[in-house]
Each structure stands twice: as structure tokens, then as C-alpha cells.
């Protein structure tokens, strides 16, 4: 059987989760993978909880539904933990990556996941404010994802990001995003 990796993104509208879901898919595509990326469409209001999905596989992806048993869960806003069961259905050996100021140990306790689930934390918002100047944690968290899961290599993420952002942003903004990826890659901590 071919390997299919399923990533579920939890965020608030405006944090760039859909861009991140697509960035990971597009980066995997550069490596020759089959991909799928889609948001869960609903009423779009800034700040509302939303989900997005990325699938990466070495074979064509036939399934077209939402991801209920993710290998990887990425959470872009830790205030969602109060209202959303972000780890619902996660694989026993899955990985959670959380944008938070909590330590990995604190996050692990807070999430209450089984011992087999790897919990990683990074202050992606802090990094985004430092580098990009705004709390848009989507690009740094992809750097953390590259480090912790290896689904996509960080160099290729940066290559893809440069290409995508090159169409609409200044070089200064692209460089700030690239720095945010590098910093999250370095600073992400696992329990």
C-alpha cells in the first residue's frame, strides 16, 4: 500500500491556514508527490475557527473527504483549545504542532493526548511579529512542521514560498517570511 499522509489544520480565519495548507502541498508536489489541499468552506468571518486539510501521497489520491484520522494536526491559535477538540481522531502515533507560548510539556498535559502522540510547540506568533511585523503565524509554523515531521524539506519550503510570494510581495517581505521559517525550524520544541 502506498503511503498517504493526512494533515489537518486548525486556525482562526485570517491566520493564513489555507495558504499554509497549500504551501505544504505545493512543496510536496515539487518532490513529485500527489497532493490535495482544501479548506473547509463555511461562513467566512475573520477570527472564526476553521479547518483546512492537506494530503500528500506517493500515489494518486482518490479519496475526497475531510480528514478525520490525521497523522499530523497543526494548530495556529492555542485559544482554540478551549472550544475545539483539535486532536479528535488523531493517529496513535500522530504529531501535534501548536503555535503557543506554552512549553512542550505543558502543551502535552493541556492536550491530554496518548503517550504515542508527539507534541511540538513553537511561538509562531512571536516569531511572525519579530520577523514579518504582524501576527501571521502560517509561514513559521510550516518551518516547524518541516523540522518535526519531515513531510517536506525546509529548503524546498523556502524555494516554493519565494516563488509563490514573489508574485505579490516585496523582496523585503519575502525575506522576512523566509527568516520566520528558519527561526521556527530552529526553535520548535518537542516534549
Amino acid at each position, binding site marked *: 500500500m502506498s503511503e498517504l499522509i493526512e494533515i489537518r489544520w486548525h486556525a482562526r480565519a485570517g491566520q493564513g491556514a489555507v495558504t499554509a495548507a497549500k504551501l505544504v502541498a505545493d512543496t510536496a508536489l515539487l518532490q513529485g508527490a500527489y497532493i490535495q489541499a482544501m479548506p473547509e468552506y463555511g461562513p467566512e468571518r475573520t477570527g472564526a475557527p476553521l479547518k483546512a486539510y492537506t494530503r500528500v501521497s506517493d500515489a494518486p489520491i482518490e479519496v475526497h473527504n475531510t480528514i*478525520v484520522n490525521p497523522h499530523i494536526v497543526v494548530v495556529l491559535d492555542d485559544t482554540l483549545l478551549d472550544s475545539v477538540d483539535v486532536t479528535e481522531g488523531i493517529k496513535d502515533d500522530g504529531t501535534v504542532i501548536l503555535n503557543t507560548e506554552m512549553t512542550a510539556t505543558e502543551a502535552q498535559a493541556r492536550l491530554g493526548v496518548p503517550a504515542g502522540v508527539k507534541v511540538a510547540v513553537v511561538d509562531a506568533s512571536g516569531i511572525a511579529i519579530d520577523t514579518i511585523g504582524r501576527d501571521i503565524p502560517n509561514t513559521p509554523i510550516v518551518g516547524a512542521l518541516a523540522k518535526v515531521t519531515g513531510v517536506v524539506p525546509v529548503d524546498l519550503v523556502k524555494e516554493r514560498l519565494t516563488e509563490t510570494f514573489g508574485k505579490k510581495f516585496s523582496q523585503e517581505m519575502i525575506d522576512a517570511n523566509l527568516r520566520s521559517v528558519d527561526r521556527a525550524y530552529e526553535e520548535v520544541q518537542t516534549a
Partner: protein
Amino acid sequence: MTATKPFSATGNQMIAEAMRQADPDVMAAYPITPQTTIVENYAKFVANGAVTTEFVTVESEHSAMSACVGASAAGARVATATASQGLALMWEELFIAAGMRLPIVMANANRALSAPINIHGDHSDVMGARDTGWILLFAETAQEAYDNTVISFPIAEDPDVQLPVMTTLDGFITSHAMERCVMEDDETVRSFVGDYAPANGLLTSPTPLGAGMFANGDSYMKSRYMLRHAIQDSLPVIERVGKAWADTCGRPFDVVDAWECDDAELIVVVLGSAAGNVRHIARELRAAGKKVGVVRPRVYRPFPVKQIAEACKGAKAIAIMDRADSLGGQYGPLAVDVLGALASAGQSAPFHNYIYGLGGNDLTNDLVHKVFDDLEKLADGSLGTGGTSYLGMQEAEGAQNIWLG
């Protein structure tokens, strides 16, 4: 090969690209979710000079199809796109387009109908066009949405067909999800699609013509009889054009995609994107030694009766999955068609009809497993044949075996 490198795109982007490559003379369209990005992308092509199309902005879908009818009758290559309430608003024009034998190509991003209001994917809209005389194609993936749209033009415009074609994809599920795709180069598509030379264009014909005239009983019925033959006889043309495109692009084409049906005992018949969900689980079951098969009509009108019956001939149980209901009828539209196909071939097997995924309701892997579990029960007789249920709503009172009780 002439294909591009793989890139990521949504189904709507792929349809817009296919239409760009076919470069119709006229597009008249009105935006509606989840189709909007097709005409939005196309409007950019027009603005950037990438196509020669005259883009007609109209005030409603009724006007959009009216403008398409007029342009097509005049002798132009015409394309448009719609969905849901928009397709419903076109309803009377759909019959006119087919009755006047106008080879209009229209994309439909299949979506639920109100009420309640819902913008998500199901087949309620397109099933309303089932009996209009349009050829109906269902795409499973963004890639197939592209391929189906490319072949729609030569099918519609074939002198032996001369019928409108609806190239459909599932709203949001396929229209908005980003997938890995490839595209043939513009030259390849342009030469495959060719130039349109209308046989009877009102503005191109050397002799004066009338179209859409009044017809009394006898001539009206004769006209409808000819229309029935025209759409019935289009199936071999669809197959020929589809196979020719498959030879060009290297991606397979069959009017019915019969997956592992040679020795299949438990068969699911399903349209569109959901076929992928079912095959995803069917592969696991095959690997575990279960003789399961998946039948997916890629062409729904004309209904490929013989191919469906052939694919199901070894079945010990059949599940027919409908993403639309026929309210007040016993079964959903696909089930009625499949049962008709089996009856006309003298075949029968225990079956169950599932109404699933209405308003974009998720077809989860668990629900697909439930269908295969039921098939085993149908085959061994522990579940009676002929039932209908709303899949995933078994807990709702009376939702299971609606017509059996």
C-alpha cells in the same frame, strides 16, 4: 508527450483552462458559488487577450443561457458555466438549447438546491437537467474536469451529435480542492478541438433558415423522437472522441469506469468525486481478499445502459449511491437508471439505494465501510433487497429502508 509539468490547481481552474484552449467565440455567464471562479478566471483570460471570446455579462442565468442559445443558433462556438439555483433558473432554456440542437458547452459545479440554503456539493441541480436532452458528464477529479471539458467541444459540435454538453464537477469537493494536475499544450488542444464549422448557423448559412419554430402534435413528437435518437446515438461518438483524447494525453477514458468488475461480487455504482472515496476503501478490501468492484458512469446522459449491465453481470449484491433524491419516488435517479439497465439486460441482484452527501455532507470512510458491510448482508440474505436509506442518518427515525417498512 506535450503535457505540462505537474502543477497544483482546482477543478474550476482546470475547466477555465480547458475553455481557454478551446477559445469559444462567445461566453455569456453569471456568477454563482461554487462555479464563480470558472468565469472569473475566464474573464481574466478575456481581459488579458489570451482568448478571442466575446464575454457577455448578463443580469441572470436565464439571460446567460438565452444569450448562449442566440449566439449558438447564429453559428458561434459557445461556452458558459453555472451551478445550483443558476442552473435551475436556466431550466426552460436548457430544453430550448437541446431542442434546437445547439452545441453549447456548459460547466456545472454541482451544488445543492434551496431550501434550506446550502452552497455545497450534491447532484440535486444537475439531476434537474437529466431529461432536458443535454449530454451530461461527471468528473471525479480536477484532472478529469479538464479532460471532460476538452472533449465536450468536439462531442457537442460533431455533425452527428449537435447537442449541448454539460461538463460537471462536484461543488467545493472538486471545484475548490487543489490537486495535482497536468495540462496539454495549447496547440495540442486547439488541433484536437478543431475549428467549429456550423452546418446550420443562422448567420453562417448561405440560405435563410428558421430555428425554434412552432410545431403541432405530429411534427412536435417527430422532433422529440429525433432528439431521443440524437442523444442515444451520441454515446459511440462520446466514446470515440474520449478514446482519441486518451490516446493524445495518455489518461484513460471509458464511458463507464468499471474498477475490478471482472470478478466482482459486491459492486457499488456511484457518480463523481465520491467514486474516489469508494475506490479508496475498495482497494483496502481487495487487498484483504474481498471481491469488490466500483462502477462509475463518467457519462450519465446518454445513460450507458449496456456498459452498466456488463460491469454488474457478476454481482451478488449492488449498492447504488445517489447524491440527489427523487422526492416522492421510490429511488434516487441513478438507482432508477441502473435498475432499468439491469432489467433490460435480464439481470438482477439484491440491491440497496443510498442517498448520501446531500448539501456536501461528508462521505467519510466509515460510511463507505458501512455500504460494503451492507453489501455482504445483501449477498447472504440477512439484509432484504430493494431498500432505500439516507446514508449516515441510520439513527434518524425511519431513515433506514424507507420504502421497505
